[in-house]
């Protein structure tokens, strides 16, 4: 096979990529692959730093029988976008934001392996994060109220109880 870029030399670097949902293969000679620079060669076969390669290895482990937590039947498909868990393990990408909820049960063991925990602790967006912030404040108030009760600061505890009720009504709206 000839190199798809220079059409002169033999292609011996084969690069697979997912573009716009479709798998595409590029065949280049070594020289053109190098000239293509940093981004392309990282996908070349045999690179020990290939992240996607690593991920698909993990996902395949995940889909092997007996790994799913016992007694939990995970849905096979996201009802919003139609992506199946099988497709996800092949391409390593979700189809839409709702996939995270649909596949949540199977996600925890995977995230524990590739991430440092399964719960976000970083930045929270102002708009979509407002409710999340309120929920965190609520937890904080509940903890403080318990402490106030334990140390017999009942006035403070009553104050906190009112704040908690207010937040609970806001959140249930």
């Amino acid at each position, binding site marked *: 096979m000839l190199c798809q870029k220079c059409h002169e030399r033999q292609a011996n670097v084969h690069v697979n990529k997912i573009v716009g949902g479709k798998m595409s293969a590029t065949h280049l000679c070594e020289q053109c692959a190098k000239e293509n620079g940093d981004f392309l060669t990282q996908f070349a076969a045999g690179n020990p730093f290939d992240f996607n390669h690593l991920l698909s290895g993990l996902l395949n482990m995940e889909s092997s029988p007996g790994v799913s937590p016992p007694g939990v039947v995970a849905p096979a498909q996201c009802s919003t976008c139609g992506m199946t868990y099988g497709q996800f393990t092949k391409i390593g990408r979700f189809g839409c934001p709702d996939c995270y909820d649909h596949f949540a049960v199977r996600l925890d063991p995977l995230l524990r392996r590739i991430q440092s925990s399964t719960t976000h602790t*970083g930045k929270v967006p102002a708009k979509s994060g407002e409710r999340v912030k309120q929920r965190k404040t609520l937890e904080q108030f509940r903890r403080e109220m318990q402490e106030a009760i334990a140390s017999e600061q009942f006035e403070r505890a009553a104050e906190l109880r009112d704040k908690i009720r207010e937040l609970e009504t806001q959140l249930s709206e």
Partner: protein
Amino acid sequence: MSLSDFLQRATSRWMKDGGPEDDIILTSRIRIARNLQGLPFPILQTDTHADEVIRAVQEAVAAEAVAKVGKFEFIRCASLSPLDRQVFVEKHLISPDLAEAEKHGAIALRDDEAISIMVNEEDHLRIQCIMPGLRLEDAWHLASAVDDALEQSLLYAFHEKFGYLTACPTNVGTGIRASVMMHLPGLVLSGNIQRMLTAVSHVGLAVRGMYGEGTESNGSLFQVSNQVTLGETEEEIIGNLSSVVHQLIDHERAARKALLQENREALEDRVCRSFGILAYARRMDSRETLQRLSDVRLGIDLGILKGVSSGILKELMVMTQPAFLQKYFHEELAPGERDIRRAMLVRERLRLDDTEVR
């Protein structure tokens, strides 16, 4: 147009300016992934979905909140020639995947090219901030400010437990990828690089050669970045990366010092030989160019070469790439022809400086 005019116009700020620790750190880069609520990720996008994302981001970029962060130009990939898209890739402003997303992709670019917003790459938005030298915190604050400004017009897909939702679970949570490009010739020449890089990969960071494969990096250029995006705050992620980078800097400085003390003659020979080849050769492939530039830059840093601007490595490692070369010479060039023009461009650039070999 003269070369110096071309340089003024065609280079990004990160290619020209210096910054903290810039004898070793070429650039700091922050990239954050964001997606819009209620729309499929680009992998399952129809034309209508893609247009919806592009229109929403274009409006958000045009809004006053974003204008406060800078002057942005919004460009659809379809309106760029393949050569121009490749030039953007070579300047590290967009990814090769976005360059190939001719139909659905778009870019919002700040006038100094320090911020680029990629639209419909793997995620709906990838906000990237790139700065010269070691300035990860500054880059994060700037990227985060753009993120805040955009969010005033956009509704992000955000999950109470998982954080910012991304197409790939390796980005979920903070969606942040922080990386630094390091020039580590001392560790390469002293034979310690493999050991260092293995150690770095054991503390949860990813390392790869910028050009070339694996640790056989051309030009001793390496990129170090975080792998974990969920379960740590952005500040923790950047802090971890910074502390490892600082250790690498110390090791690199020590290796350079040892080389100078124990192998001065061999080192001077290598540096001056490379300078001579860059200054006089008539054919240069990109691999050799990078290696020689790396030697020359080391020679500048160690005081062996005087009068050559230290930005030469950053500048020429981008400008001698295939698309940039063709842009400069205004014509399509076959690979063999490129080697001749590459050598020509390098010679021309070196003549702009008033070099003195010590």
